[in-house]
């Protein structure tokens, strides 16, 4: 299938999102689409698949002018969109999720579950996924849910597949599998639009790249004819010096130490973090990294083991105690666990430190506002006012609000779980810079991340978790992608 | 400490002196003199989900229309709190006399008192009020009704017949009065061999009657303090296969159907429309400053298959 989009304009109310985009997708190519958050990538694809109508411009499919009325029509024509926000029905089984709205029927309109299983089995084998079909989708990890979505898309016999940040929640191994699948799809003549923030991936698998900025296409080039730096420069419209700002690490005393911590999803975990240090925690999805952090923070119960804070043994049974001990937790799912989306920026930031503004029971709004404004400025949250609803901010700005909220409690230890997921390059760098500032002031940071370059670029020390245990500890100097992956997959 | 106590006491006194049980003078409505044709009647009914009270309301409305007087009707839906609000709203509309059919005798007291404080005469219908000044209570003459039932049995079966009595909720005024009336006659002319409470309930009427038949197989008639119990008793009698005459009280729809079907011998029917009618007459007299009887009995009617 060959698609051409010409001079596409689209506005939401007075907000002009697309201002004359051109895009071409050839048959059997993997075409990367890059741009900062809000550049219009997803909107352009939604216009193509008929979710949004266009204001101006033309779309040609195989040379014929074609406009889809809705995504269903596009899907029937062979264009499938795997969205970044997963369309998972959490109470339904994995199998039912894969066939929602297109269940194969047998006599009397009954669902043909044998056929469903056979079809699903085929795709799972192809993707090397081993998930029980009757598992509740809501209890699958985000990565597993992503794989379900991908398997679902493969079943539609699509000629064009649009993937929006497909690897954001996947482990290295799952990513490799996905890439293999993409390569074989390409051989079959399927075209793929690959939207991602991850440079390494794009340069590894894509044939061409289109860079967008402020609702326009800036450039389209074959991958061999461009480079990492050029793409970044075109994307942000300015030079970005280094991806990772320089760290001056001077680790001090041990602040947090865990000894033989054992919980439902992990056992015998021991490690420590010093003040001013960033400890990276790597491992495959589902290895138990998040669960260890939730255990330390008191969200999940701990079966045995000790948490030692500043040399004293402490019991943390709930998040309130953790916060009172000066521990902050930036969770991997900011919309579900990090933010009250309907709250203003101010109310979100002030949430964990409310009592410090209310020495006599009544919140002193002036103090609160000054404090919040200071943090907004320090974290360069882009907003007109502190009263803006957090749900209206971009992903990167939302993440900054979550971080601001925890900086507000004056933490001694900060746990960051996937701190830059779904955040654009510019904001990423700002977040890294912030981590450096915090460690300069003596905060101990534990950073859980699935992005290996991030772990390597920012950590002073790297812990690798494999099947609920610490498989190894690597100092910054000797750590490489290879030796991390070896530990993460159970090698020695 | 003593100073604080003194302060506290003074404060409480000041606060208390600012309190009163009467609405402030500036808020009281004007009560001018009015002609009789201009009088307005307010009726507060306990519920309109019961045919008895619907007829009672119709009685009031019909009588008032006949006299060319306006009536405002409010329905408390069996909620005593709502009834107090309703009465206040009626007072607000400037009614000259209040006819109240209370949901509960104790709960209505405050509403009667508010009417008293503004000088609006109150007539209660069917049930009385515990407190406050009520000009008159219009209610069925339950004592007379009990007597009528006993006399009917004597008429039909002759003196000395063996009879049973199904009583209502012990202590309730209807139970007391209907029982008294019945015994006024029955103690002399009949032989009451069984007397048990079935709490005005149809199911209990059934089980209690079964027991009575078991113990006294020879009874010839039974008097129930209401129709519900009478209808329960009929079931018990039918399954025992005996021929026992049943007489109920109230005259509700089910009972009248049972009489038509030849199952129920008779019922002492209340006449709610008549209660309404009498209440309007008493109310108008009271509004004109005439003296009215404190207890106005509404006559009852014995309904048999002939009627």
């Amino acid at each position, binding site marked *: 299938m060959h698609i051409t989009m010409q001079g596409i304009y689209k506005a939401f109310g007075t907000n002009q999102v697309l201002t004359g985009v051109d895009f071409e997708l050839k048959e059997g190519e993997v075409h990367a689409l890059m741009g900062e958050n809000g550049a219009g990538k997803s909107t352009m694809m939604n216009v193509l698949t008929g979710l949004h109508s266009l204001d101006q411009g033309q779309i040609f499919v195989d040379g014929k002018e074609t406009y889809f009325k809705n995504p269903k029509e596009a899907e029937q024509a062979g264009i499938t969109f795997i969205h970044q926000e997963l369309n998972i029905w959490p109470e339904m089984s994995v199998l039912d999720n894969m066939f929602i709205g297109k269940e194969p029927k047998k006599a009397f309109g009954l669902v043909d579950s044998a056929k469903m299983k056979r079809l699903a089995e085929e795709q799972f084998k192809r993707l090397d996924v081993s998930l029980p079909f009757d598992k509740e989708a809501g209890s699958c990890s985000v990565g597993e849910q992503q794989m379900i979505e991908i398997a679902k898309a493969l079943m539609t016999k699509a000629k064009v597949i649009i993937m929006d940040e497909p690897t954001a929640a996947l482990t290295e191994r799952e990513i490799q599998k996905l890439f293999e699948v993409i390569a074989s799809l390409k051989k079959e003549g399927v075209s793929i639009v690959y939207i991602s923030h991850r440079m390494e991936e794009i340069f590894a698998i894509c044939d061409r790249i289109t860079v967008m900025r402020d609702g326009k296409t800036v450039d389209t080039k074959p991958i061999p004819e461009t480079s990492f730096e050029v793409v970044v420069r075109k994307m942000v419209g300015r030079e970005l010096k280094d991806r990772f700002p320089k760290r001056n690490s001077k680790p001090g005393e041990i602040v947090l130490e865990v000894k033989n911590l054992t919980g439902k999803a992990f056992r015998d975990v021991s490690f420590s973090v010093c003040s001013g240090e960033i400890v990276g925690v790597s491992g495959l999805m589902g290895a138990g990294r998040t669960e260890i952090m939730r255990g330390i923070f008191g969200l999940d119960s701990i079966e045995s083991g000790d948490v030692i804070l500043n040399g004293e043994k402490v019991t943390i049974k709930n998040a309130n105690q953790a916060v009172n001990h000066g521990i902050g937790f930036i969770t991997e799912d900011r919309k579900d666990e990090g933010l009250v989306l309907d709250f203003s920026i101010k109310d979100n930031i002030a949430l964990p430190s409310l009592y410090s503004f209310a020495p006599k*029971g*009544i919140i002193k709004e002036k103090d609160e506002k000054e404090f919040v404004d200071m943090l907004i400025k320090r974290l360069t949250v882009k907003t007109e006012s502190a009263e803006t609803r957090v749900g209206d901010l971009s992903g990167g700005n939302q993440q900054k609000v979550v971080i601001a909220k925890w900086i507000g409690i004056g933490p001694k230890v900060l746990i960051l779980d996937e701190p830059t997921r779904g955040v654009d390059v510019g904001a990423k760098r700002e977040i890294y810079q912030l981590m450096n500032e915090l460690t300069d002031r003596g905060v101990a940071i534990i950073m859980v991340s699935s992005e290996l370059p991030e772990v390597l670029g920012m950590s002073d020390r790297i812990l690798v978790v494999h099947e609920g245990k610490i498989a190894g500890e690597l100092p910054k100097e000797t750590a490489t992608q290879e030796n991390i992956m070896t530990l993460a997959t159970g090698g020695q | 400490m003593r100073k604080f106590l003194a302060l506290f006491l003074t404060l409480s006194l000041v606060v208390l002196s600012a309190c009163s049980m009467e*609405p402030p003078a500036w808020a009281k409505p004007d009560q001018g003199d009015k002609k009789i044709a201009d009088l307005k009647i307010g009726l507060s009914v306990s519920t309109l989900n019961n045919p008895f009270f619907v007829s009672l309301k119709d009685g009031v409305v019909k009588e008032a229309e006949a006299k060319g007087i306006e009536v405002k009707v409010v329905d408390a839906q069996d909620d005593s709190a709502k009834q*107090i609000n309703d009465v206040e709203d009626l007072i607000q509309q400037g009614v000259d006399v209040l006819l109240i059919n209370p949901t*509960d005798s104790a709960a209505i007291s405050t509403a009667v008192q508010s009417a008293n404080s503004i000088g609006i005469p109150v007539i209660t219908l069917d049930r009385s009020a515990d407190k406050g000044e009520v000009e008159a209570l219009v209610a069925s003459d339950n004592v007379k009704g009990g007597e009528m039932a006993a006399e009917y049995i004597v008429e039909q079966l002759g003196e000395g017949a063996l009879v049973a009595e199904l009583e209502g909720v012990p202590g309730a005024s209807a139970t007391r009065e209907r029982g008294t009336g019945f015994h006024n006659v029955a103690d002399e002319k009949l032989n009451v061999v069984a007397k048990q409470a079935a709490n005005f309930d149809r199911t209990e009427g059934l089980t209690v009657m079964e027991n009575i038949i078991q113990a006294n197989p020879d009874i010839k008639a039974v008097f129930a303090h209401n129709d519900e119990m009478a209808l329960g008793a009929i079931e018990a009698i039918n399954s025992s296969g005996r021929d026992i005459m049943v007489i109920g009280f109230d005259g509700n729809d089910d009972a009248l159907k049972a009489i038509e079907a030849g199952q129920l011998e008779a019922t002492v029917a209340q006449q709610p429309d008549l209660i309404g009618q009498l209440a309007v007459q008493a109310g108008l007299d009271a509004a004109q400053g005439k003296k009215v009887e404190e207890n106005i009995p509404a006559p009852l009617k014995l309904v048999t298959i002939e009627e």
Partner: protein
Amino acid sequence: MKANSEVLQEKKGNLLQSVTQKLGPFLGLLILVIFVSVMNPSFLEPLNILNLLRQVSINALIAFGMTFVILTGGIDLSVGAILALSSALTAGMIVSGIDPMLAILIGALLGAIFGAVNGLLITKGKMAPFIATLATMTLFRGLTLVYTEGNPITGLGDNILFQLFGRGYFLGIPVPAVTMIVTFIVLYILLHKTPFGRQTYAIGGNEKAALISGIKVPRVKVLIYSLSGFLAALAGAILTSRLNSAQPTAGESYELDAIAAVVLGGTSLSGGKGRIFGTMIGVLIIGVLNNGLNLLGVSSFYQQVVKGIVIIIAVLLDRKKSA
């Protein structure tokens, strides 16, 4: 590039929207008041306004508590039953010779304890609020009937303070209305000016995020259901004084009136959004409807029809606004 005037226009639009959003219920009340007073001028007479304030006070107290509960995303169906049970217990205490004011205080505290039972079932027992309070509603209702044996408790004596509590006037304003206004002010400050209030909203907005932010979610919830029970019992005390007796069936379906008032006031049943001022307006709308329709001589059957329609219209308008 957007023209400046366009931006200005947009801002004006937003302002207008936020004004209608905040004042929507208030405008509704105003229209209703104007309509009723044109149809029957006696509506605006001072005595009627005082009556109205007294009439709404009971529903107001219950609806204030319900506002907190609904803001956390919960519901409390047991308030009517708590009202009846605490009213019966209070009356029982008074009859047995305990000082009436002390009895009212103990009764209100008992109400708080009944509410805490709800809170514990929901937090520790992990029950859905609807189910938990449906169960306790039945339970408390049953206990009331057991305690009163189905009969009203009367003979509450003639203690003047007790009578003032439900029927008296303070500086010309009905005491229940004074109680309502004082409670409103206290709760307004609690909801909008204290950490507790902010946490209430946060729990309704995103309970997981609230928990991770260190908020003691279970504790806040238990306190809120206790508050709801306490206010229901306080409303019960007013009712006991007004009726000069405790009725075993008191407060039947009061929970629905309270929920209606909260919803009319613009609070979202899914939690996190709404204001107690809106609830006050919602309570007044229902009160004006009850009082006004009586004054207009509308039959009680039609009154229910009208109330139902008003709720539907209010919620539809609310949807439209937020869309």
